[in-house]
């Protein structure tokens, strides 16, 4: 007989796979949210995401941030660091703030829809 926790693990893996594209698409939203708090350094963003389902690596994050900057949603400034060369600190622009509000809105609608279906 298959132990219960094994089933759970399998189910989790399954869900992990099924929601793969969704997680990928949501990453931009999450990054905007993280950046909206305070100005952050890339390592901060990675740390915030590390223990979640959205764990991300530099290889994905840098192109994404560059795209967000190109779209005018985030901006960065160089700041000196105690150790090593200056770092890019990212913050949300006003356009980014508007976009984030829209995404927040949309996300809460999706949540409501999901909660409203079934049960």
């Amino acid at each position, binding site marked *: 007989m298959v132990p219960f926790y094994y089933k759970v693990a399998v189910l989790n893996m399954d869900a992990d796979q099924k929601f793969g594209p969704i997680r*990928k*698409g949501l990453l*931009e939203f999450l990054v905007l949210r993280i950046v909206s708090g305070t100005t952050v350094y890339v390592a901060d963003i990675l740390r915030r995401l590390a223990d979640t389902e959205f764990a*991300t690596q*530099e290889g*994905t994050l840098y192109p994404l941030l560059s795209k967000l900057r190109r*779209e005018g949603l985030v901006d960065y400034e160089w700041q000196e660091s105690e150790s090593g060369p200056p770092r890019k600190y990212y913050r949300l622009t006003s356009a980014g703030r508007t976009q984030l509000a829209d995404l927040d809105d949309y996300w*809460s609608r999706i949540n409501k829809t999901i909660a409203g279906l079934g049960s």
Partner: protein
Amino acid sequence: MQKVITVSLNGNAYQLDEAAYAQLAAYLTEAARALAGNPDSAEIIADLEQAIAEKCARYLSAHKNVVSGAELEQVIAQMGPVDDTQAAGAAGAAASAKPESAPGAASTHAGESSGAAPRRLYQISEGALVSGVCNGLAAYFNVDVTLVRVIFVVLIIVTGGLGLLAYLALMILIPYASTSEEHAAARGLPFNARALVERAKAKYAEFARNAERHIAGAPWRREWRRVRAEWRVERRRMREDWRAYRRSGYRRPLSPTPSPAADPAPIHYAAHLVTGAILAAIGLLLTLLTVAWVLALISLFRSGTVLGYALPHDMPFWVALIILIGLYQCVAWPIHHVRRALYASGGSYYGPWAAAWNGIIALAVVVVLLWYAAHHQAEVRGLFEQLMRWWQDIIAHHPTQDT
């Protein structure tokens, strides 16, 4: 003994052994390949090099200044593959309002440029009042055509007719949008076959819905049932929303109202209330405006003044009349259009409902004003008494049939 290769990572020297160097070179080559076509590829690669350098620094100390192959393998595992499809895919999602431009393996740059199709100025004769210049301008600037027309009229008045010449010049110079491709370009929509089919399908669905409701002779009873069903659904939704709001201790915000453009059918109740309030206000405003205008006309006809203000000496009566009519049209026209837009935003069944309300409001305002006038203005009271006498005469001379 091992050979050591010194590399520069974003301007800082690091020493790697041969195995590490091979891996790093492979990783950066792969990164450059993945970012080919990205306008910011140089900056991203500099960022990646910087991140690699920082990770390598963790493996180095005063007594160890060479990064080994195994260490660099870990660094690269932490970095993860350079994935530009995230950026490209997200770009497609962000521009989802526009028809999707196939991202695929194409660079983000190409994806973006195809999303924003070039926009050209055309005259659009569909729904045009004169020639379609304003229509085309409105499409070009993506604003309401009424706004463009009002601006044009104001310009013509302010410039003393020069604006009219400008209109004529534009009418002759700007080409008409005749093909679908030109129509798309006039509105700045990307023209491709798929988008066209999508738009056509949306149009057809809308048309079919309207036809079902209005043209195909759908009996009013069925229509009324459908409307009631819609209301029931809305009431239920509102009740549930309100309950959730109460459960949350009045902290959870009520659900946002869906934008009317997205889907005309499910309109949130709150949106109805707001629309209703605005419609009522507009109805009141229009009625008052019309009453004031009618009074001004009456006073112009009777005493040659406009609500007590004498006309300038050199102004003939007919000029004052035209100005008065034109002024009323200028003010009332945009308000009428706003009202019509609100009818549409309120869903299909909202129009007649709101129109009935407007009638009631107008009637109420007129009755209140008449009542006030009858009680406070001797002249009007005289008129009323005169009317009453006529009425009595009519009744006295033509007895009704059922008596």
